[in-house]
C-alpha cells in the first residue's frame, strides 16, 4: 500500500516524456522500493548505466547522495533495502 501510494503520487509529479520507454530492472527482493523511491525523479536506466562497477559502499554513497544532496524523500528503512538491491543486482562482480 505504501509503495502504491508513493508510485501514484510520483506518477502525477513526474514529467511525461513522450519517447521514454520503460526500464525493467532485475526482478529481485527490493525492486519495489527502487521503483517507488527512485523512479519519480529519474528513469531507472541510471542504475544500469552505472553497472556493474560500484561496491556496496559505492551504491551506499549514491543513495546517500540522492537523499542528502538531492533531497530525495527516502525513509531509512527503504534506503537500506535499495542499497542492498543495487549492490546484489548491479554491483561490482
Amino acid at each position: 500500500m505504501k509503495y502504491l501510494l508513493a508510485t501514484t503520487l510520483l506518477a502525477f509529479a513526474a514529467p511525461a516524456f513522450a519517447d521514454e520507454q520503460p526500464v525493467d530492472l532485475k526482478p529481485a527482493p527490493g525492486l519495489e522500493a527502487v521503483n517507488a523511491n527512485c523512479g519519480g525523479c529519474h528513469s531507472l536506466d541510471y542504475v544500469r548505466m552505472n553497472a556493474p562497477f560500484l561496491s556496496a559502499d559505492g551504491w551506499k554513497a549514491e543513495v546517500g547522495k540522492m537523499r542528502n544532496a538531492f533531497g530525495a524523500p527516502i525513509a531509512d528503512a527503504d534506503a537500506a533495502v535499495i542499497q542492498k538491491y543495487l549492490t546484489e543486482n548491479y554491483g561490482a562482480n
Partner: protein
Amino acid sequence: MLAATTRRSVLLGSAAAALAGPRAFAAALNPALPAGLREEAVIESPAGKRDLLKLTWRPPNYETPLDGFTTPITANDRFFVRYHLANIPTKAELANWSLSIGGDAAEQEVKLSLADLKALPATEITAICQCAGNRRGLFTPHVPGVEWGIGAMGNAVWRGVRLKDVLAKAGVKPGAVEVTVRGADSAVVEATPIFKKSIPLDRAMDDTVLLAYAMNGEDLPLLNGYPVRLIVPGWTGTYWMKHVTRIEVVSKPFDGFWMAKGYRVPKGVFGTDRPFTSQDNEKTSPVTELVVNSLITAPLDGAKVGGAGFAVQGLAWDGGHGIARVEVSLDAGATWQAATLGEDLGRFAFRPWSFAVPAGSGSITVLARATATNGATQPAKLVANPAGYHHNVISTVTVAAG
C-alpha cells in the same frame, strides 16, 4: 536493450566499417565503457533531434555518435542533450518567456522580452559546448555519473547579444564578484537544489560571453536551451545555462550546490589562465576551462582498410588558445608525425585535421595527439579525479589493413 543488442550483433565485425551511419557507430561503442551502459545505449530521435545515442530517458541525456563529428560544425539535430533535472519547459510554456536581471550588486531590476533582446546589437561566435564529464565512461576505474562516451560535445555558430551589454542595462555596482544564472528547467522534488550557476564578473564582462538565441542560423532546439542560453566559450558546458530566465549580479560568491559541491576538481591539477578564485576552497576548484583534446573520426576502431594506405581524419580543440598542431603516431608513441590542419573556424572551435597513412598490411594502431598554442598537450595517462572530468587521454584506433 534488445534492440541495441540486435543492432550490435548485426553490425559488429567487418560490416561495421562498411556501414556508415549512426547505428554502425553506436554498434562500435568503446568496449572500455561500462557493460551496463553498452547494453543500455540505443539510437533514438527525441523531439527535434535525429539519431542520438540515448544514455538516460529522464532527465534526458543523449550523446552525439561519432558520425555527428564528420564536419567541424555539429548540426542542431545531432547536437548532444544534457539535463540534470527532469522538469523541462515546453515551447508553449516558453511562449511568453522573459529574462530578468538584478541582484544585490546591480543598480536596478530590468526585464527583457525576446524582442527586447533581439533589438540589442547582435554578435556571433563559433564555440564548442562540451560537458565536463565527456568521456567519463572511459575512466579506469569507472566513476559513477552519466557514463558519457565521446559525444557529450558539439561545435556551433552561436548568435546573440553580449552578456555585458545586458548587464549594462541593469548596471553593475562596485563590489560585484560574480554573475549568477538560472534557467526554467527544474526538479521533480522541491528539496532538490535548483540548477543555478555562477561565473566570475570578469568572465561575464568578456566580449566572448553571449546570451544566444540562435544556433547555426536557427532558433535553439528546445533541448539545447530554447529560447536563450548562455554561451561561455572555452569553458565546460556546465556554465552554458539553458532556458535562461534570471541573471543576478552578486557581491558574494554564490554557494549553491552546483557550485560549492558539484563540478569540482582537485585544486591545481588542471591548468587555467583564468582561475575562478572566488569559488576555490582549500582542496578543490570549480571545473572551468576545457583541456586540449582530439578525436579520431575515421576510420572506425576495428575497421578493415585497403592495403594501399588510408586517410585518418579527426577534430582537435582546447579551451580557447587554439590548436598549434596535431600529431599522429603509428608506433605506439615512439615517434610522431605532423597531421595536416584543416579550416580554422576560430580559437574556440573544432579544428579538423587529417593524416595519410602509407601503404601497409596487418594490424595498424593509430594514435592522435593535439597540442594547443600554449604548449598544453594530451597526456598518455588519464589524470584521475573523483567526478570523472576532463578526460583527454591520447585516443587510438586499430584497423586491419590489407
